[in-house]
């Protein structure tokens, strides 16, 4: 069985968030790019959890190869991390970010999967922490004409009526739901899956020897309309929030609490 994980590199979202909280997140002169060059890039956390989901399947006894693919300008570091986590195969699709959007990325990933022997299970993080769009897995599933099971906290391989299938616990607004779908299938992983493992030193050393397969866009021979972006990011800005907070005063916690309850009652927010 072949499991393919699609992974993306993003700016460290915690770092971006800290700048935002401090009111120091800035957009540069191009009107699009964040100015803070010190923010590190790392594997999208949800994608790392997707790799973890695959490793758990292998730990549970699945006879599988785990491949991690990433499209982007310089995926070496991400793929080395994937290898250190336990991927059997790593592949990079070099692309200039200025020439692609999430639609064309989805087609590139579909092209890679088809041309590299197909996949029984495609695992993706539910969304990338930079654009938050979360559309690539669904676009990928449609391109491959396979079902997409989204927002998983657990994935299990089972023998279904028609062959291998996945049983997925989905996190829905109404609680957990258990569904089943026959392979091949795309499953997206949510943070509720839990902590991914750390690579061991031994694995990190071994990973240094693993070379990523470089898959050029040209060799995927995709039709022009698939390579053509459908959206172009023209601007990025930091929204301003108008503050209008009344800070309550009091000598003691008890006073502050009383003052608050008083105000809320006066405003008819509380009875």
């Amino acid at each position, binding site marked *: 069985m072949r499991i393919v994980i699609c992974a993306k590199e993003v700016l460290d979202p915690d770092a*971006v*968030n800290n700048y*935002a909280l401090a009111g120091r*997140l800035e957009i540069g002169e191009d009107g699009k790019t*964040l100015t803070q060059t010190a923010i590190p890039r790392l594997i999208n956390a949800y994608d790392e959890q997707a790799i973890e989901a695959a490793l758990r399947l292998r730990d549970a006894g699945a006879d599988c190869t785990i491949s991690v693919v990433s499209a982007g300008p310089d995926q070496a570091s991400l793929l080395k991390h994937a290898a250190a986590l336990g991927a059997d195969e790593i592949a990079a699709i070099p692309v200039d970010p200025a020439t692609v959007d999430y*639609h064309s990325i989805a087609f590139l990933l579909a092209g890679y999967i088809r041309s590299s022997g197909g996949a029984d299970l495609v695992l993706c993080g539910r*969304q990338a922490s*930079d*654009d*938050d*769009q979360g*559309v690539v897995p*669904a*676009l990928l599933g449609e*391109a491959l004409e396979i*079902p*997409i*099971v989204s927002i998983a*906290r657990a994935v299990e391989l089972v023998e279904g009526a028609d062959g291998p299938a996945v049983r997925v616990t989905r*996190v829905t*607004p*109404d*609680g*957990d*739901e258990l*569904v089943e*779908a*026959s392979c091949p299938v795309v499953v997206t992983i*949510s*943070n*509720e899956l839990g902590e991914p493992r750390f690579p061991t030193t031994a694995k990190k050393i071994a990973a240094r020897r693993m070379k990523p397969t470089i898959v050029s866009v040209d060799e995927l021979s995709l039709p022009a*309309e698939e390579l053509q*972006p*459908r*959206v*172009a*990011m*023209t*601007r*990025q*800005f930091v*929204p301003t*929030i108008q*503050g209008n*907070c*009344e*800070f*309550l005063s009091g000598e003691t*916690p*008890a006073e*502050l*609490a*009383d003052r*608050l*309850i008083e*105000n*809320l009652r006066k*405003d008819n*927010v*509380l009875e």
Partner: protein
Amino acid sequence: MTSSVVVCTWGEGRDGVPGESEEMLTLGRKVSDSLEVDLNWLVLGPLPDRAVEVAGSYGVASLDRVADTKLADFEPDALVEALAQYCAQQPTRVLLFGQSFDGRLIAPRLAGRLGAGVVMNGVDVDVGEDGRLQITASAYGGDTRVVYELCGVESCVVSVLANAVSPEPRAGEGPDPTLRDIQVDLGGVEERIRTIEAARTEGPRLEDAEIIVSGGRGLSAPADFELVEQLAKALGGMAGASRPLVDDGWVDSSRQVGLTGKITRPALYLAAGISGASQHMAGCSAAKTIVAINRDPDAAIFRYARYGIVGDCLEILPELIRAAKAR
């Protein structure tokens, strides 16, 4: 046939129309005016009680209904096929959905099927001087906004965040909408995802709560969450949490308020020990009254709050519980 702007809803609501209908129709009206095309409202499944009345308030040209037994439970393969067939029959320039859990999957699947563009987390749609569609969306968990211009394709599916638009009905505008029953053939559809165990809501939902007390990193230990629950109970509300508490296993994910958790809109949202990160605020900024308790006077949460207490929530919460219980 010129392409119209279409607002698509399914399911029931609480006010005789599905939630977010009026917000989507407001945005749809704005875009259709800019494009000088019709605004249509596509309803999948049974027509909601007030649909005709609400459609009239937004100048909807055509209220289109697609009904089929396979749509009974609004399962994804049937929904996507019905929508794709509708769009094949009725040229659509922009298809608007109010962002929902199910919609997160339906919108991009449909775009893939149609060869259209898709943008999620939308907060606005504009038409540029060159006639190109510009969709503003939230990014970095809400820390930034991004404008995407549609290029290379004519049509776009946009999923719009709850609370991004305020309803602006126009009384007595133009003629009543035409009602059309659009036929689709779902004979070939068989849901490829089978439910083994359905989700069961146990008890009231955070999304429906009128009063929410929420805890974040300002709490120092899992046991402290008890204080949040006690205050929620004393106020007659429900307890929520920011994502870090869920990730650390302090509370169940059903309590998670935020962009990837529950989007709530209570009358009162009391945030204890929460920094006010955008990802979290996306889940509660629509609250009528936000109260913040935080040790840091510069915490971002205070930019959203109506009332602020600068202090240690572990000291303030017990006092609030006492004060709330007092008559």
